[in-house]
């Protein structure tokens, strides 16, 4: 390890990471620095029997290359990577139901979404055939799977990103059938995004904050997703041109 790791924890909110006492001791054992400010102390939880895997850092693993020279196949691979991430996230959320402070309604919603995302992943895996041979390793820095607000905030991030990703990939799809398939999935992601947003901010405009959803180019999506992926994601031959959506922010 060439650099000394540092964890700064100014308040209890930062403890929304699955960083248990054991992890902190590990950090100190390798000569890292823990800066624990007073407001954080009360919330430093014990290990409570729930598996809390050590958080791996994003962008530190093996290369994960999606080559857009493959055309539509690359777009599907890109979708497959994102669906792997989402499916893994909701599986962890559901597995932590027993120790989380989610409401019964939250759990009902999140259980359904977990089903949907696993189906999206398995569908794309099957549809890609021999082109499905890669596995994304997710990581969730800053996410506390026992905490309602942390889980829902992360879920909102994933769903909004998924919507913007599919909307932005549409212009690179050359087959009308693939375009329809992407459309079949993206509107379900948008339904998820609305419901999650409404759980966080009920009966406000949060469920649909703008009249047009974001349309993000693949490289922008990859940069955002990289924060939750250990593998080093790169897009080879990424399309050089991009037609903006109405929000002009992709």
């Amino acid at each position, binding site marked *: 390890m060439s650099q000394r790791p540092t964890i700064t924890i100014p308040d209890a909110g930062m403890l929304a990471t699955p960083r248990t006492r054991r992890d902190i001791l590990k950090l100190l054992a390798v000569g890292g620095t823990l800066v624990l400010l007073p407001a954080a102390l009360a919330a430093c939880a014990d290990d409570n029997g729930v598996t809390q895997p050590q958080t791996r850092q994003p962008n530190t693993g093996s290369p994960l290359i999606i080559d857009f020279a493959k055309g539509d196949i690359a777009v599907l691979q890109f979708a497959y990577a994102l669906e792997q991430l989402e499916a893994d996230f909701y599986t962890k959320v559901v597995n932590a139901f027993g120790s989380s402070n989610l409401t019964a309604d939250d759990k009902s919603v999140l259980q359904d979404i977990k089903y949907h995302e696993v189906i999206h992943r*398995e569908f794309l895996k099957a549809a890609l055939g021999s082109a499905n041979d890669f596995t994304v390793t997710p990581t969730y820095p800053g996410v506390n799977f026992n905490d309602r607000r942390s889980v829902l905030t992360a879920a909102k991030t994933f769903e909004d990103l998924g919507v913007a990703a599919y909307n932005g990939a549409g212009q690179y799809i050359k*087959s009308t*059938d693939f375009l329809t398939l992407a459309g079949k999935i993206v509107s379900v992601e948008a339904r998820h995004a609305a419901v999650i947003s409404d759980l966080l901010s009920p009966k406000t405009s949060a469920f649909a904050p703008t009249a047009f959803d974001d349309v993000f180019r693949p490289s922008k999506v990859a940069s955002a997703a990289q924060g939750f992926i250990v593998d080093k994601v790169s897009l080879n031959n990424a399309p050089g041109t991009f037609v903006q959506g109405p929000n002009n922010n992709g």
Partner: protein
Amino acid sequence: MIIEQRPILESIDPEILDTLAAREHEIAQGASVSSSTAALLALGSIPIALGALSREAYGQAPSDVLDVLQFALLLEYLEAEFYQRGVATAGLIDAADRSIFTTISAHETIHVNALRSLITAKGSTPNAKPNFDFTAKGNLAGFNFAVGQYETFKALAMAFEDTGVRAYKGQAPRLINDAAALSAALSIHSVEARHAAEIRRLRGKKGWISGSSREDLPAFTQGIYNGEDNQSQGGVMLSTLPGYGANGGATAATEAFDEPLTKAEVTAIITPFLA
């Protein structure tokens, strides 16, 4: 909206560009199989490519794009007037729900204006707003946005939003050669899905469509939900996927995919609402 002027896919493998050029020629010739489909098939065991054979080359002429935009405009006129009238009626909408409907109303009006601008920018004239009959030719006899009719108002909102999602989805392939129109349509399509989910939840339903269920909507709306029970996606039967039974079975599998409707199917759904 900023449209970058360089040709799409410029930076991609020259072979792909050649394929695209060849495909343009084929479309002009009315060919039913493009060389990009052939290229997909050549890649090997990709079941999803099989479905691409018959449909790839339909509908991409500029007149087709205008037809899509005018059709979308009709749907947005319907929604915009519906919500405008609802929001304008004091006491119809529960006070606690008012932000939801003012938000949706604003969006639909913006969609109307955006589509009108797109049509105008293409050198055509937006169709005028028709008159609407929100009783659906008497199917909802007496509905006139009166105080006390909130349940009917919400039911209609769910019907319109779920229709809108399927309508845009069905039209997207006709925009495949017009990236600006496609991006705009996709960005509206997913917002309609957000609206649909919110209203469904407000009505105590799931945010997503299970099977082909219209939930508690009246029978005349069934066309909005027919076909939503499809489990064959891109040549893959979802029931054959690993863990299917333990992962929500048919209910989850049908919820996970929203289905398109054709223009004819959508027209049949909205015709009762045209005065």
